[in-house]
């Protein structure tokens, strides 16, 4: 059934990767450069901006994480051209980051506000770079027909309620199995939201290494709660989850993992590293929606299947986030934010199987260019987390 899926049109990149969007990305290396980066992007229609409060006074693994996520934004196949904006004295140098991204062989410009001569000149220079990039991208970047098995699909749930675990997530699970069976890559994270369900995932691990990785990461989240002498119930489940009928983290987790389908977990990776193995990959990410989405997309996800019961508008800077709900009230109250209303599963007897196929065919349309709600509404969130102290 899945093997007969027709080819879809994707952008082919110089490094041999394939993208489903052709974004011009303006990437800030440090908080001090955010205003210039945002001002440039605001004046260049079609561009997206990646800003964050970090990039300075970071050490070791923490600084590496920031660099890795910013480099991944530039490398991502949904991005066709890049302008890196730095200040000039930060650890994450605009020049070094730009050079790293150039390894993808896509056009990259960089500027430093100190060298350019202040805010206004830097903004003007950035806009000029964008004009040049737009010219290159319009001329060379075209979609070609290619097998959808080249897709990398991220899975995520946020603002969960009772409907997530019994309807929306199982439907995503069917869709995930369909992508896996055609040889595509599917990545999921949210380590905190595996507590109480990890034994099921460990049983599905392809080998001991993957199983041990999952156990170790879940254990480390649980130990963090112990070290802080706090009950994780303060945040997991969240007040919204609880109002929506979820009582414990175990219940939330058991519902959450339904979106991973039934197949074997073939690989397990650290936050923001590239997913390279076809099939289902676990990435160690926070449960936080934006940090998780950023990790999955940094790992190569072209798009994210995002289920919600309470409703959330969040998108992502350079990847479509598909909003799926099985809660009828949210499908109506937040209709403009919802791409797929699967509430007929609970009210009209739509089968989970058919709902999963519906998600699959919609995801392919999105891959070919159809805009999701978050994109239409201008949701271009970008953000990740820190693993070290602010010095």
């Amino acid at each position: 059934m899945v093997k007969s899926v027709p080819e879809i049109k994707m952008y082919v990149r110089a490094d041999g990767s394939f993208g489903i969007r052709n974004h011009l990305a303006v990437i800030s290396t440090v908080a001090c450069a955010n205003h210039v980066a945002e001002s440039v992007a605001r004046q260049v229609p079609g561009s997206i901006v990646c800003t964050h409060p970090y990039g300075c006074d970071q050490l070791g693994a923490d600084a590496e994480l920031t660099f890795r996520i910013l480099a991944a934004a530039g490398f991502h196949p949904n991005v066709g051209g890049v302008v890196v904006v730095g200040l000039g004295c930060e650890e994450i140098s605009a020049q070094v980051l730009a050079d790293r991204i150039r390894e993808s062989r896509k056009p990259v410009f960089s500027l430093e506000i100190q060298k350019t001569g202040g805010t206004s000149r830097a903004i003007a220079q950035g806009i000029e770079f964008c004009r040049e990039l737009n010219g290159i991208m319009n001329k060379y970047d075209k979609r070609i027909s290619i097998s959808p098995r080249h897709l990398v699909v991220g899975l995520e749930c946020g603002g969960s309620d009772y409907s997530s675990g019994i309807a929306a997530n199982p439907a995503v699970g069917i869709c995930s199995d369909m992508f896996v069976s055609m040889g595509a890559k599917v990545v999921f994270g949210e380590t905190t939201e595996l507590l109480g369900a990890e034994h099921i995932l460990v049983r599905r691990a392809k080998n001991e290494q993957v199983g041990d990785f999952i156990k170790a990461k879940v254990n480390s989240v649980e130990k963090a709660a112990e070290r802080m002498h706090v009950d994780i119930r303060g945040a997991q489940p969240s007040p919204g989850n609880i109002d929506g009928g979820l009582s414990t983290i175990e219940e939330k987790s058991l519902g959450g993992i339904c979106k991973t389908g039934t197949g074997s977990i073939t690989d397990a990776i650290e936050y923001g590293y590239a997913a390279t193995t076809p099939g289902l990959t676990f990435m160690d990410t926070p449960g936080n929606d934006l940090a998780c989405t950023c990790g999955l997309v940094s790992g190569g996800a072209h798009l994210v299947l995002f289920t919600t019961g309470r409703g959330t508008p969040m998108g992502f800077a350079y990847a479509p986030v598909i909003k799926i709900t099985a809660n009828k009230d949210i499908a109506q109250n937040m209709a403009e934010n919802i791409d797929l209303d699967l509430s007929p599963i609970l009210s009209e007897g739509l089968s989970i199987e058919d709902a999963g196929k519906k998600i699959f065919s919609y995801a392919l349309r999105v891959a070919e260019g159809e805009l999701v709600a978050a994109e239409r509404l201008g949701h271009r969130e970008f953000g990740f987390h820190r693993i070290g102290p602010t010095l």
Partner: protein
Amino acid sequence: MEVQALQLNSGDNVATLMNDAASGDLITVLDISGSAVSTFSALERIPRGHKVALTFIDIQSSIKKYGERIGRSKTVIRQGQWVHIHNLESLRGRGDLHGQISSGD
């Protein structure tokens, strides 16, 4: 009024309500194929999407949904009662108890 509840696994001792239930409402429990498996009365108001006890549940017993343990009872729970954070507690990530609960049991 008749209210439907969904039992996800035959081993579960709670089911999820598909409509709001008032005290005294008749609850029909369906399995995932949609077949009715039991009926009883709601003993209290229970919101849609929340859980109802399918059987008598003794204090400190496993509460099961998806055929898996989602926590344990803090009180005795009778069939038809609402099961939520007031009478069901998690056993995971409990740094507040620090060593009092073994997460692996």
